[in-house]
């Protein structure tokens, strides 16, 4: 019996040397020490030994079992180590082009529009919207631009053919449509009709910003027949032009990250009085003078002024009680200068090689 024990141990040791996987190691363990293992079987036969030999054999058996278990453990550690070394020897080049879903982008105009909208919302301006096809009453008349007034020439207007609903001749609204004369429906030439709509719909205090598409018959290297404007309106008791200046300066701080100077130059827009153009300290050089501001330290942004009392009257607001200011400027040119876009046409062509530049 002890001899068989020694034989088993020798056989185990020989087999162990050939084991090169965890699975094979487990198989070997089962073959010798499992329930039906050969070494386990020898222990079962211990009862057949004379009692005086049993103790010695038992001790020997335990020694062999311990030796096998230790060898197994050592081998297991060795194999794990070996596997880890192999794993660590792997090389994969992560400077290869990353795998990602195709990258999309938002249009630079959208990005500017969103930033403007967010800035002004932080300054307490709610977003207001209006139709693109507008009635001349809201686009012109109520904004103090009467029919047959030269101020209408300030914006070359697209006119929309009025519509008559066939088969609804008795409908009163249709009658109104019938009475529409040519030239009364237009593509809005500015976002200002949203001012009128807002003042007709709500009482002061009014603090809104209108942002959107506008249209003028103008088509050259620097003018697109469709473009984008933003317009702000603030109406309440005691609103002054000093408030407008402070608000525009606050806007520059929010939008450009630093508070820039704001400069007014007298100008004329029929719906404001006094009217002004406003410039801001050049955001690119901070007012020191650079190519983008033509060394003046300022860039021209847009128009502004105190809401004309005639506009208040058209909207049912008493100009003796309330005052207000409005400002407006083009989003397209601001976007182009922000991103140094070389040609206006890039903005509306939809060339993916252009659009993908604005992540």
């Amino acid at each position, binding site marked *: 019996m002890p001899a068989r024990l020694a034989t088993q141990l020798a056989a185990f040791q020989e087999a162990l040397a050939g084991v090169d996987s965890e699975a094979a190691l487990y198989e070997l363990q089962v073959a010798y020490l499992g329930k039906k293992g050969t070494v386990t079987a020898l222990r079962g036969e211990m009862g057949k030994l004379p009692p005086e030999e049993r103790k010695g054999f038992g001790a020997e058996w335990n020694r062999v079992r311990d030796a096998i278990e230790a060898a197994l453990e050592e081998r297991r550690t060795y194999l794990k180590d070996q596997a880890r070394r192999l794993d660590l020897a792997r090389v994969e080049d992560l400077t290869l082009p990353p795998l990602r*879903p*195709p990258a*999309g982008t*938002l249009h630079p105009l*959208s990005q500017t529009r969103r930033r403007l909208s967010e800035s*002004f919302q*932080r300054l*307490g301006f*709610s977003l*207001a919207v209006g139709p*693109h*096809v*507008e*009635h001349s009453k*809201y686009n012109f008349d109520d904004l103090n631009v009467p029919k*047959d*007034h030269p101020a209408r020439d*300030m914006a070359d207007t697209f*006119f*929309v*053919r009025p*519509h008559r*609903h066939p088969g609804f001749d008795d409908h009163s*609204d249709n009658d*109104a*449509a019938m009475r*529409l004369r040519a030239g009364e429906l237009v*593509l809005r030439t500015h976002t200002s009709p949203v001012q009128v709509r807002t003042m007709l*719909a709500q009482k002061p*205090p009014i*603090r809104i910003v209108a942002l959107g*598409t506008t249209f003028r018959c103008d088509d050259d290297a620097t003018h697109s*027949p*469709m473009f984008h404007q933003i317009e702000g309106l603030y109406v309440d008791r005691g*609103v*002054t*032009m*000093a*408030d407008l*200046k*402070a*608000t525009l300066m*606050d806007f520059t701080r929010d939008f450009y990250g630093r508070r820039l100077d704001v*400069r*007014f*130059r*007298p100008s004329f827009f029929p719906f404001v*009085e*006094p*009217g002004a153009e406003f410039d801001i300290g050049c955001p690119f050089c901070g007012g020191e003078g650079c190519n983008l501001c033509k060394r003046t330290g300022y860039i021209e942004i847009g128009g502004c002024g*105190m809401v*004309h*009392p005639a506009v208040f009257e058209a909207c049912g607001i008493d100009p003796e009680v309330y005052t207000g200011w409005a400002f407006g400027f083009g989003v397209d040119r601001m976007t182009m200068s922000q991103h140094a876009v070389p040609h206006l046409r890039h903005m*509306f062509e*939809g*060339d*993916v*090689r252009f*659009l*993908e530049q604005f992540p």
Partner: protein
Amino acid sequence: MKISHQWLSEMFAEGALEAALAAWSAEGKAAAYTRLLTGLGLEVEAVHTVGEGVRSIVVGEIRGKSPHPKADKLTVVELFDGTGVVQVVCGASNLPPLGGKVAFAPVGAVLPGGLAIGARELRGVPSQGMICSEAELEIGADDSGILVLPEDWRAGDRLVDRVPGIVDTVLELGVTPNRPDALGHIGVARDVGTKLGLPLRPPHVDRPEAANTPGLVTIAAPELCGRYLGYVLEGMSVQPSPLWMRVRLHRVGLRAISNVVDVTNFVLMECGQPLHAFDRDRLAEGRVVVRRAEREEPMTTLDGTQKLLTTDDLVIADAGAPQALAGVMGGAQSMVHAGTHHLLLEAAWFAPPGIRATARRHGYATDSSYRFERGVDHGVGLERAALRALGLLLELAGGRCTAWTDAAGERPQQPTIPLRLPRVAALLGVEVPADTARAVLGGLEVQVREDSPEAWTCVAPTHRPDLRREVDLIEELMRFHGLDKVPARLTVPAEARAAAHSDPITELGDRLAEGLRDAGLHEHVAMAFVAESKIEFFTVPPERRVRVENPMRAAGVMRTHMLPGLLDALTHNVARHTRPVRLFEVGRTYAWPERPVPKDGPTAAIDVLLPRERAVAAALIYGGAKGGASAREITGAAVQALARVGLRARPVDPPAPAAHLHPGVQAALAVDGAVVGEAGEVHPDLVRAWDLPEGTRVYYAEIDIEAVPPRVTATARDLPRFPSTARDLSLEIPLTLSAARVVAALTAAAGQVHRTAIEAGQRASGKTTAGEVRLATDSFGEPAVEVLEDYRGAGVPVGHRALLLRLHYAAEQRSVTDDEAQALHNAIVAAACESLRASAPTVRPR
């Protein structure tokens, strides 16, 4: 509007402007004018210093002329330049006779255009300088020959001494429509004088000594003509104007024609007042009638075009026919010509809206209509302009004034404007001192009565029709006090402001845009108008299209769909590169509603007249020249966009096929059973219409933003405790039967089998354990039926495909055994096939 510094100077005491400008600012004339006028709202767009090169030009006298020995067209001239005789070769054909005077550029002169004059040889003959044309000296437009000077000028005199003001600074002003007064030098001078504290001293004028002759002018339309001054001049002679007049007109961009016409143009530029001169011998009865035209009354204007007039047009007629389109353009018949010696000079005020309407109706935009439609002076300024012209005519064309009259129509009333000084601060946040206000209003010729220190009553001068109410005067005070003095001061501190809100549709559009961007698409912005030919494939009928009356780029219809704009962009891309094109746009489409849609709110009466504008998000995918995009990418992009707003969308069979999509490759996009959009392959006819290569596959989807339901807050479901068991199913179906319908049929069958089993179980045992095993649901509570593969290879009959599906089965309280899953699966498949066969008889499990 071009303004000459020399001309402005003549509106003040001699030398006063130059001195005051230098005292106001040391930065130089150009910069000082720019800052001064731009600060007053008269924007200086450009400043030109002109005539510097004329300084070296002298008067030359022709002493001898002989033909050039080698060139027919050249003449060798012996020229006396005041000190000696030099030889000059000249190519002009209008050389005056011996003794005649010309403009001579001696050797060393540099002409205004930059040409340096040197001694040179012209075809073998030496030439010591150059005889110049007015174009070469940039003092006129005539380049047909040399400038011939008056014979009595002395040889050797410098041209700059003979023509004062020939060296000048010219300002280009952007004059806003509210400032007709600034369309003449006097008006600009009034602003400059007020700012610099200089009294205005315009040139002296005299009234004629002739008798007032009311019969000269009859105003038959007093509502359109407020005032008409007429002056008769006899014994005139029409000839070219003197050089100073021609130079002055050239400086402000006008062309010299003849003394009579030049004088009217001169006064136009000096006073901003358009004048007209009739050849009185050609006026029937020598008088004028200011009246409305008759319907379709013919008239030939002096540009030679014949017009048919309307009763809204105002004409200046003689006793019979129209002789001028009032305030817009003169008539051909009575225009001044070389033989005119008898004039009727007109200075009038016409109602601005009428002039504007007439000019537009007949397609004119003249210097005259431009000023009349903005409103000229109907008061002292009008008469001043007329008298200034009269004086110049007598000086330049001779003759005498024999009759005049001042006929009155309905003149605008000058409003009385209360001015409350504290209101300035209330509006602008800055005070203007009373002394400043007094000086500004005085300078502008506003009459002021100071009722109290704070409340004044003002009457605006007739040359400022824009001053109508208190704010207009406040603006004037601010213009001169300095808008740059407005401080920056918030009315309400930031922390006391109400919170702002966004616009829901804009917000939704922005989120969908982000979803489409995340799906790898680039945002495009297309024009909102398209050519009619580009929307003919779409379903909005012609009568519902919104049309632009005066389109550009031939794009006369507001887009009814987003697809044409995206296809245009695709065409642009395909013509330039071979890469994939993945684009989207969020914008509006336009159409008249099928029937009037009632509106409410304060703007309803207007809104009902407007077309419907729909907010749409649209996406387009093209795989590039090598192909590679799949139709399912477009549904994927749309579903991803909707996921961005928290919605689970799925493609379903379209309720009605979209005409612009391939009939066999399209789906509707549904959220909770409601259709919010469409997706599919662009119809091959459209691919052809856009001239894309034959066989190009383009995929398109759009989401009707206003149809997108609001986001629903997600409700958590408990997680299944026991695993589910799956069974695969390969179903042979016709090509036209959609996966969405197969899944729907399986789901419906599962429900039906489940209910039947419960009923049967209850009948059998009175317990509810039967039916405990059922079709599992996914994390969102939807039936767990997966579509794994769409097989169309060998072994499937023609017109069919094999759809591989996987159905999951589960029970709530325990694991499912293979046997019960299989039994349920078999029952569901059988029931689903049976229901599908009702419309597609060839459906069978494989």
